[in-house]
């Protein structure tokens, strides 16, 4: 079992170019292995916060600490490597490459890190794909799958490296209620099996009971 990463955000402030009001988060702490939801109205900065935690962007000020690593202090190269190796990302629009089949999409983070998929990776993919119910779809291209299947494929890609931290940005946003529940089941099952920390940005309040913690970004401040 993995040791999940804790996440701590302090005095976070990020100003997007051309945007008058910055995204600001005073304090946010999520323990290792917890399942946390971040909610809030559209445009309040949920995705920005998730991007800062994953190292996609560096905040204008403040710190983002993931496990023992202060991600906001890392150089770009280190942040990319950290993201590839240690974080599983699930996006609302799936972000699957149309010219790769599901198996290849799943190994994309490995390839981007300049590595081939190992035997362990292959085995993990087989096991995760079975759990996600897409074992028979691994050689299909994304356009040949339904919305629900695509999101499960995206989840499978996020899980294939057994990351200590899983970040999901509106993973159920494009899905119906049943498919959304199923995707969340997969993420929580992974957390239970591997001890990963799961942070989900969502605006679907019907799902919130299932999380250990809920953080609300109200306007531009965390609640």
């Amino acid at each position, binding site marked *: 079992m993995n040791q999940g990463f804790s996440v701590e955000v302090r005095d976070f402030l990020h100003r997007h170019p051309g945007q008058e009001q910055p995204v600001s988060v005073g304090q946010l702490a999520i323990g290792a292995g917890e399942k946390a939801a971040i909610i809030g109205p559209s445009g309040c900065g949920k995705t920005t916060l998730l991007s800062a935690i994953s190292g*996609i962007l560096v905040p204008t000020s403040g710190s983002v600490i993931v496990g023992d690593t202060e991600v906001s202090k890392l150089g770009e190269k280190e942040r990319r490597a950290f993201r590839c190796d240690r974080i599983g990302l699930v996006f609302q629009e799936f*972000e699957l*490459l*149309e*010219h*790769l089949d599901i198996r*290849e999409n799943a190994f994309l983070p490995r390839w981007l890190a300049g590595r081939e998929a190992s035997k362990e990776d292959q085995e993990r993919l087989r096991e995760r794909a079975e759990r996600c119910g897409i074992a028979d779809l691994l050689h299909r291209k994304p356009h040949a799958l339904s919305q629900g299947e695509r999101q499960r494929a995206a989840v499978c890609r996020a899980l294939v490296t057994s990351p200590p931290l899983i970040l999901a940005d509106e993973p159920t946003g494009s899905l119906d209620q049943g498919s959304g529940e199923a995707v969340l089941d997969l993420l929580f099952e992974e957390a239970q099996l591997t001890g990963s920390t799961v942070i989900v940005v969502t605006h679907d309040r019907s799902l919130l009971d299932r999380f250990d913690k809920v953080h609300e970004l109200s306007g531009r401040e965390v609640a």
Partner: protein
Amino acid sequence: MTSPLLRLAWKSLMHHKVRSFVLVLCIGLLGVLPLAVEGFLQLYRTQLESRAVATPLVVGAPGSRSDLLIQSLYFRGSVEGSIPMRIARQVAEAGRVTPIPLHIEGTVRDYPLVGTSPDYQKFRNLRMATGGPWPQRLSEAVIGSEFARREGLTAGDTVPTDAEELYDLGGGYPLVLKIRGVLEPTGTPDDEAVFVSLQTSWVVDGEGHGHIAINPDVDFSLILENKSDNVTMNAAIVEAVEVTPENENSFHFHGDPDDLPISSLLIDAATTKDQTLARSNLRRDEELLVLDSMNELNELLGIVLQAKAILDANSLLVLLAALLMLGLIVTLDIKVREREVRTLERIGAPRGFVARLLFTEVAIVVGSGAILAFVTARALIAGFAGGWLSF
């Protein structure tokens, strides 16, 4: 093992097969013409030069130098004047070099009919593939390998020479040639020629003729004049003249044999010194045009190269335009693939990875187009250059 970058680039190109194929095809087509022209020029140059090197000295009547060179070496085109056979005799009598007379006037199925002496075979090192020997008797011929292949002729067959002027009743009649042999391929103009003795070519050219025995069963309305020693008949009764044992002795040439015409004279010299002396002697005669083949050829190729420089400049401009178009396509492609690029960056593509990915895709397309152009150009050249390149 394929690198991830190369694999991703390949997958992307294969995903847009039609677009990739069209791009490769465009680049391929752009490259074919300049590559093929360059290849053809090289091939022409090599073939022309090797022939010119093997035939350093050519003598003919004053007139166009290039016409004389092209006809004497490559059996193409025609020359305005001729020189008398006497020149060949005088060169032979002077010793040191062997004169090889050429009389190139007629054609056989549009291939050049070359009247020459048996020395030509030795000079060009021509070997018989079938039959032989080199034609010495009237109406005998040996044919080049390419002519034989294309026309389906072999030793033992007969073939008439082409009628020069269909409505010229005073002109020579086609002569039926008996093919005695087929030459081995040489990759030179000899492959497409029909070789006969000088006497045969003179008969074809109307310089000599024979008298045909008349069949008493012919329509007497065709008899134009009937004297005790000679019958003159309408030309309509003769389609082609054939030399037979019965009429062979009737063939003759009027006038002095020394005055019979030849198109040119090739000089076979054993040493450079012999060649220099022969050239010097021949140049004293102002009625003769003496050519150093390589010099003349280089002048001719200089003209061709000037034309090619214009073509090269044009190709360069087209290439520049194509590169600009390719740049535009890549720019538009980046816009279309904005989402894919964003995904790669969000998942963790290293800095410059997307740029390298696009560059790899462009390199594969350009490389494939270049290979296509090269292979097509080579195929075109090989297709045309199976034998001697025709003018």
